[in-house]
C-alpha cells in the first residue's frame, strides 16, 4: 500500500510548490503588470484578462518543469506578447500615446499647484508621444520595477541597448519637459 502511494507524492508536492510561487509572484507583479498594459493602451478589463492569461501560462510553465530563471521577465514578456495580439485583434495601433487627460486625477490642494501639475503633465504627455516605441516600452518596463536584464528579455534586445535606450529616453523627456 505504501509503495502504491509513493509515486503520487512527488508530482503533487512539486505542483504545490509551483502554486505557491505563482501566488507570490501574482501578488508582487499584478499591479505593475496592469499599469504597464494600461499605459500601453489596453483597457483595464483587457489588461486584467491579459494578466490572468499570463499567470495561467506561468502556472503551466512551472508545472511542466520549465526554467525558473528570470521569471519576472518571463511573465512580462508573455503579457507583452499577448497585449500585442490583443491590440492587433482590436485593430488598434500598438503603443499609442499615453492619455493626456489625466488632470482629473490630480489630488492637489491649491489651484496654483493643480495648474502647474496639469501643465507639467501636458508637456510630458507630448514628450512621451515623440518617443520611439522601444524607448517608451523600456521606460514603462523600468517604471514597472524590472531590471535592465529583465527588460532585455521582454523586448528581445541586448542589455547594453536597454541601458542606452533608457538613457536616451529620459534625456529627451528632461529636455522637452524642462525639468
Amino acid at each position, binding site marked *: 500500500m505504501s509503495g502504491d502511494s509513493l509515486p503520487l507524492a512527488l508530482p503533487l508536492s512539486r505542483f504545490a510548490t509551483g502554486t505557491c510561487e505563482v501566488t507570490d509572484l501574482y501578488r508582487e507583479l499584478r499591479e505593475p503588470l496592469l499599469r504597464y498594459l494600461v499605459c500601453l493602451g489596453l483597457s*483595464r478589463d483587457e489588461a486584467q484578462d491579459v494578466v490572468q492569461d499570463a499567470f495561467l501560462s506561468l502556472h503551466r510553465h512551472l508545472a511542466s518543469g520549465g526554467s525558473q530563471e528570470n521569471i519576472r521577465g518571463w511573465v512580462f514578456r508573455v503579457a507583452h506578447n499577448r497585449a500585442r495580439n490583443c491590440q492587433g485583434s482590436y485593430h488598434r495601433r500598438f503603443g499609442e500615446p499615453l*492619455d493626456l487627460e*489625466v488632470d482629473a*486625477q490630480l489630488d492637489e490642494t491649491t489651484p496654483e499647484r493643480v495648474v502647474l501639475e496639469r501643465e507639467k503633465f501636458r508637456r510630458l*504627455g507630448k514628450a512621451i508621444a515623440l518617443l520611439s516605441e522601444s524607448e517608451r516600452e523600456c521606460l514603462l518596463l523600468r517604471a514597472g520595477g524590472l531590471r535592465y536584464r529583465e527588460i532585455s528579455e521582454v523586448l528581445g534586445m541586448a542589455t547594453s541597448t536597454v*541601458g542606452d535606450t*533608457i*538613457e536616451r529616453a529620459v534625456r529627451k523627456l*528632461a529636455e522637452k519637459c524642462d525639468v
Partner: protein
Amino acid sequence: MCNHSGKLMAWLDRELGSDEMVELERHIDACSECRSRLESYKQASATFDTYCDAVASAKTHRERVPCWVPVLTTTAAVAIAATLVFVLLRARVEPPTLPPAIRVQAPPPAAVVENVPAPSKPVQRHRPAAPAAAQIANWQPTARAIQISIPAESMFPPGAIPRGVNFTADLSIAADGSAEQIRLRPRLNKVERRQP
C-alpha cells in the same frame, strides 16, 4: 558633453558593476555638469512614474463609472419618487377602511339605544369586504359564546354615553383557548332587550 554622461541612468538604477559604480560616483562628485544632468534625469523619471500612475488611475476611474450610469441612476430615482408620490396620494384619497369588528363596536351613542335589538350591518365601502372580513362582521354568537358585561365608564369618558347604558361583549373561544371572535353590543341596565 561629458564622456560619462551616457551611463548616468545606469548608475542611478544601480545597473553597473561595482567598479564602474565607484568610478562614476567619484566623477559625479567632481563634475557639476553630470550632477545637474543627473538631477534633471531623476525629476523626469519621477514625473514619468507619476504620470503612468495617473494614466492607469484615470482609465480605471473612467471605466468603473460608465457614462450611462448617471443617466440610469437619475431615471431610477425619478421612478422611485413618482411611485412614492402616487402611493401617498392614493392613500390620502381613499378613506381608511376599518376592520368590520371595530365598526360594529362604535355605533352612535344615541342610536345605540334605539337600535339595540337590530344587528348592525357593515356599511358597504368602495371596496367589497374580503370574504373573511364579511364573515367576521356577520358573525352571530352561538350558545357557546361567553358574555362579558362592560361598564360604559371603562371605555368612554364620563358623559359621553347616556346614563344606564352599558355594553356586553359576546366572545367565542377557539380550541387553543384564545379569543376567536368578539362582538360588542350596547344594553340598558334595567331593561335587557331580547336577543334578535
